[in-house]
C-alpha cells in the first residue's frame, strides 16, 4: 500500500508560560500512514494525540519537521492539504444554536461547496449520519450521541480522502459508540484513509489495521495488533481484585520469579507474568500470609493493555 501521510521528524515544543512540554522526541516523530488504512493512535490523556492531529491539519505550526499528505506539505501548501482532509475534533466543534443542516451548510461552504452541490451533499450527509428527521432542530436540543454524529458529518462534507477522528466516542453511551465504530468502518470500506485517536484499547483493537501507542509525546510502539501483542510475548496479565494492598505485599508479589512487574491501579493489583497460571498459587499464598481478602482473580491473554503496561509500567486508563 502506498503512503498517504508521512510525518517527518515532526515535533512540537510548547513554550512557557503554557508550560514547557514537547510532543515528539528530540529527533521528532516519524510515521507513515498508508492509503486506505485505519491507523489508530492509542494513548492516555495528555499523551500528545490532539497535538499531532493539530499539526497534521494545519492548526498548529510544528516546531520542527513537516507532514506530507497526499503529496502536499502542510507547512508549505496548507490549503492543498486541507482540501483532502476532514477533521473531527475531540470537542463538539459545532454551533449549538444552529441546526444540523445549518452547521453542515456553513462548513460545507467553508470547504468550498455551493449552490445545488452544497444542498445535495448536506442531504446525503444527513442521510448517512441518520439525522434526516431532526435536521432542522438546534444542535443544543440533540442527545450526546446525535451531536457526535453531526460532529463527524461536518468532517465529511467535502468527501475528504482522509479523515482525522480525535476521540470521537468520549462520553457517550454504548449504543452510540457502536454506531460510530460502524460508521468509521463503513467510511473506510468506501476507501477513506482514517487516523483514529483513542484511549480505549478495545476500539483500537477492533478498528485498526495498524496502531501506534503514544505516551508522553513519544510513539513507543508501532505495528499491527498481532505484532504489538507479540512484543509482550508469552506474558499474561493477572488482575487481582485487592482493595488497598500494603506496598510491602505488592513488592513481594513483584519479586516472585517469572513475574516481571506488579502494579496497583483502581483497587486491583496487576501482575505481568510469564505463564501466569503457574505463578498464581505463590501469589495467593503471599496474599493469604498477609491476611488480606482477595475479591477476585482474572487472567488476561496478552492484549494492548498489557503491551502498554509492559512498556510504561502504567495502566492505560490512569
Amino acid at each position, binding site marked *: 500500500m502506498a503512503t498517504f501521510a508521512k510525518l517527518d521528524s515532526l515535533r512540537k515544543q510548547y513554550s512557557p508560560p503554557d508550560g514547557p512540554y514537547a510532543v515528539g522526541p528530540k529527533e521528532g516523530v516519524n510515521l507513515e500512514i498508508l492509503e486506505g488504512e485505519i491507523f489508530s493512535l492509542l494513548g492516555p490523556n495528555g499523551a500528545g494525540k490532539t497535538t499531532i492531529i493539530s499539526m497534521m491539519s494545519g492548526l498548529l505550526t510544528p516546531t520542527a519537521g513537516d507532514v506530507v499528505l497526499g503529496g502536499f506539505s502542510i507547512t508549505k501548501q496548507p490549503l492543498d492539504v486541507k482540501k483532502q482532509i476532514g477533521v473531527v475534533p475531540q*470537542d463538539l466543534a459545532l454551533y449549538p444554536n444552529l441546526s444540523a443542516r445549518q452547521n453542515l451548510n456553513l462548513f460545507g461552504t*467553508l470547504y468550498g461547496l455551493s449552490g445545488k452541490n452544497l444542498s445535495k451533499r448536506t442531504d446525503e450527509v444527513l442521510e448517512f449520519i441518520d439525522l434526516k428527521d431532526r435536521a432542522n432542530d438546534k444542535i443544543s436540543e440533540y442527545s450526546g450521541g446525535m451531536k457526535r454524529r453531526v460532529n463527524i458529518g461536518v468532517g465529511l462534507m467535502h468527501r475528504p480522502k482522509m479523515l482525522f477522528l480525535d476521540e470521537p466516542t468520549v462520553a457517550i453511551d454504548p449504543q452510540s459508540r457502536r454506531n460510530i465504530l460502524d460508521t468509521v468502518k463503513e467510511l473506510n470500506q468506501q476507501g477513506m484513509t482514517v487516523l483514529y485517536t483513542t484511549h480505549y484499547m478495545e476500539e483500537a483493537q477492533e478498528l485498526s489495521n495498524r496502531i501506534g501507542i503514544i505516551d508522553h509525546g513519544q510513539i513507543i510502539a508501532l505495528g499491527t495488533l498481532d505484532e504489538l501483542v507479540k512484543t509482550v510475548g508469552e506474558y499474561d496479565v493477572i488482575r487481582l481484585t485487592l482493595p488497598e494492598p500494603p506496598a510491602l505485599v505488592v513488592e513481594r508479589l513483584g519479586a516472585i520469579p517469572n513475574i516481571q512487574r506488579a502494579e496497583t491501579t483502581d483497587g486491583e493489583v496487576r501482575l505481568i507474568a510469564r505463564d501466569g497460571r503457574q505463578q498464581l498459587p505463590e501469589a495467593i499464598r503471599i496474599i493469604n500470609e498477609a491476611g488480606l481478602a482477595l475479591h477476585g482473580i482474572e487472567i488476561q491473554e496478552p492484549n494492548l493493555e498489557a503491551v502498554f503496561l509492559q512498556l510504561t509500567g502504567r495502566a492505560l486508563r490512569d
Partner: protein
Amino acid sequence: MIWRKIQAIAWADIYQAFTDRSALLFNFASPLAISMIIGAAFGGGSNDVDVEAAKVGVLNLDTGSTQVEQAFGDIYTQVLVEAPPEELSDFIDGKTITDEKKARRQIGDGDLDVLVVVPEDFTANVITPDKGGTLRIYYNPGAGIPGDVARSIIDGMTTQLNNQNIALQVGIPYASEQAARNNQAVDAAVAYVRQASQQLREKEAITLNRVSIEGDVQEFNSLQYFGPGMAILFMTYALSNGAISILVDQRNWTMQRIWTTPSPRTVYLGGKMVGIYVTGIFQMLILMLAMIFAANVVFGSGVAVWGTDAIGIVLVLASVVAAGAGFALVIASFAKNPDQGGSISTLVLTVSGLLGGAFLPVDDVPILGQLSKLTLNRWGLDGFTTLSFDGGTVMDILPNVAVLLGMAVVFFTIALFQFGRRFRS
C-alpha cells in the same frame, strides 16, 4: 469564493444574534424601556401627556392703516388674547406684552412659550403690493407640545390671512379655521383681504420670521437625548457578545475547525467582523424605529427622535456602529476567556456609556465633560442630538463622523493585531 465564505460566517453570527430570545429581550426591550422611563422621569419637552395651554404673548405695535377698518395686529391680539374662540381656550393662554426684551427673556427662562411680535406698519406693509409684512415669532424649542400647538395655530391664522380663498376651501388646521370663522374681526380682515385679493393673490403678503430662543435653562427633549444614548449603549453590549463569540468559538473549537477548512485564516476574522458590524446596524435600526413608534404611542407626539436628515442619520449610524464594533473587539481581544470577556465588557461599556452621557448629560460637569470626549458614546450621541434636537445637517455632524471613524480604525487595528498575536500557533 472568499467573500461567500466570509458571508457564511457572518450570517451564522447574525442569525444567532437575532434568534436568541434572551439576548433579544436584553438588546431591544431594555433600552426601549429604560429610555422611556428615564425620559418620563425627566419631564420637560414633549413628554407631557396632558397638553397644557401654551403661554403666548402678543406684542402689537401695529397701528393699522387708513385703508383698513381694523389693523391686522388687532386680529392676532383678539384671537389669541382678548376674545379667543372657545375651541382655542384649552390650548392658548394669551396675554398682551408691552416690553419685548423682557418677554424674550421670559421665553429663554421658560416663563413664556411663544411670543408674537406684530411690527409697526404691519397692516400698511401687508396691503401694499410687492411689499408684505413680517410677523416675528419667538419660541422656546424646549416648550414641547403646547408650544408646537400654539405655533401651528398662529401659522394657520397667518396662512388663512394670506390665502383666504384656498384656505377656507381645503381647510387649514381645524382650530384656527374655527377661530377665524367665529371671530368677527377676523371675518372683517378676511373680507378686506378678499377685496384686495387682486393684489395679494400672487404672493404671500405676510411672512413669518421665526426666531428660536435658547434660554439658559432650556430643557432637552428627553427622548431625543435618552433614545440615542440608550440605543448606542445597548448596541455596544450586543456587539460585545459578537466579539466575545470569537473566544467562545475558540473554546468550542469551532474556530479551530474553521481553520482546518481550506480557507485562509483571515476569512474567519473577516466573517466575524462583518457579522458584528451588520448585527450592530440592524440592532440600531430596529431600536430607532421602535423608539419612533414608542414616542408616538406613549407620548402621543410626532417627536422626530432622530431628526429628519436622512443622510446625516445614516452617517452617524454607520460610524458609531463601526466604532462600537471596534471597541467591542478590542476588549474581547485582551480577555482571557469568554466569561472574563463578558464581565470586563459589561463593566467597560457601562462606564463608557456613563461617561458618554447615556444616563445623564455630562457636558457641563467639569472633569466628566472632558473625559466623555474620549468615548464613542458621547460622539455618537452628540451626532444624533445635533441632527434632532439642534436641527443640524450633514455638515454639522461631519466632525462626529470623522472622530468615530478614526476611533474605528484605531480599534480595529489594535484588535486585529492582538487577535493575530493570540492565534499565532
